[in-house]
């Protein structure tokens, strides 16, 4: 059964059809939630909540990209989770200085027992990206996750977070600029293919 047929069946209350859509998009929604929330448990909760909300509000879907529609529900779930987190703050997992400030340097990535080559694996790259994403305001982070990690176009991102197209362009430019600076700070800790030069062609 193709996607539109599954959506129509799910809109008639066919839970099995909806669950097939869940299996198709659950990785995308979970990854989006994970990048925004930076916590696996919270991301899983937000993803589950998003699918539940999506099933309940399925009749409000009026065509267009179903993925973008689902990403809107998970983004809303993430914002709810962040608001809850703000009301009940938890201890950050990143190390703190003696003064209690969070460490800005990427020293937490370094593992003295591992070789430099081992440090340049995918996990390190992921940690570096996540660290830089966490330094962004939530609005910027959401835009860059949707556009650059999930691959939505500007119109779809505007539809997901319900802001004008101009705002998307502006937020994305600012986010990319700050991410470039952050990733440059990682320097040698990034795999060679991903090192950012300060000059073109460096």
């Amino acid at each position, binding site marked *: 059964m193709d996607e539109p047929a599954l959506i129509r069946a799910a809109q008639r209350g066919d839970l099995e059809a909806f669950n097939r859509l869940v299996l198709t998009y659950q990785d995308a929604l979970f990854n989006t939630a994970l*990048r925004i929330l930076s916590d696996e448990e919270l991301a*899983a909760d937000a993803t589950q909540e998003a699918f539940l909300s999506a099933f309940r509000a399925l009749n409000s879907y009026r065509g267009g990209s179903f993925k973008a529609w689902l990403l809107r529900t998970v983004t809303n779930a993430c914002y709810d989770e962040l608001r809850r987190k703000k009301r009940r703050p938890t201890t950050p997992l990143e190390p703190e200085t003696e003064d209690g400030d969070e460490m800005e340097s990427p020293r937490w990535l370094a593992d003295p027992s591992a070789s430099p080559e081992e440090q340049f694996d995918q996990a390190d*790259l992921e940690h570096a990206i996540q660290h830089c994403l966490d330094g962004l305001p939530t609005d910027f982070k959401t835009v860059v996750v949707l556009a650059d*990690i999930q691959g939505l176009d500007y119109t779809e991102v505007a539809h997901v977070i319900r802001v004008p197209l101009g705002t998307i362009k*502006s937020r994305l*430019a600012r986010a990319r600029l700050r*991410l470039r600076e952050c990733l440059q700070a990682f320097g040698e800790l990034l795999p060679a293919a991903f090192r950012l*030069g300060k*000059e073109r062609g460096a």
Partner: protein
Amino acid sequence: MKTLTFHDIERLSAFLDGQLRQAEKTRLETRIKSDPELAATLDGLHQARSILRRTPKRRAPRNFTLTPKMAGIRPPVPRAVPVFSWASAVAALFFICTLGTNLLGQFSFGAAAPMMAAQPMGVGGGPSDESLAATEAAVDSGNAYLTATPETYAMTIPEATATPDTRLVQPPETSQEKTRQPVNLWLVFWPGLAAVLVGSALLIRWASIRAFRRKISPRQKP
């Protein structure tokens, strides 16, 4: 080297995503060729975007499929269920009424005044000698015989007096009692009350269903 404005950065970012109009795109391309700072910034933004696009994708830690319970889906209710529920309510009501009637009846007639023992009739309509003797014996043995219930009455009659003739000295005849009983109004009242209650319930139900139907499909004004 002149410093780039945020507007330049914004245009470079949109240029990367192919979001600029043709004229603007051509103008920016000309500038990039002549401005190394602009070109370096574009390169940096491009690399940052490339890194983000290659962010490792995680697999979902579990399946997020919904169960019927989570989705709040309930099995369809059979059509007869409302009828059965009403029948249960009516049955319960009648049960309570019946129970109440029985209890009230017991309180009303359980302590009825003792009746005089029926006298066996002799020749000519008068009481026979045997029966008179039996009656005297009964009077002698105490008033308990007169006030006793039919069962205890039979048990407390001495064997000496329990001759075949004394069988006529029986507990008070209930036929006489029945003829003197007033019409039991409770037997009329409770079913009547039940009928009124059920009727009211049906009326309320009908009114609420009508109101709900009006609400979900309001009449269109011409």
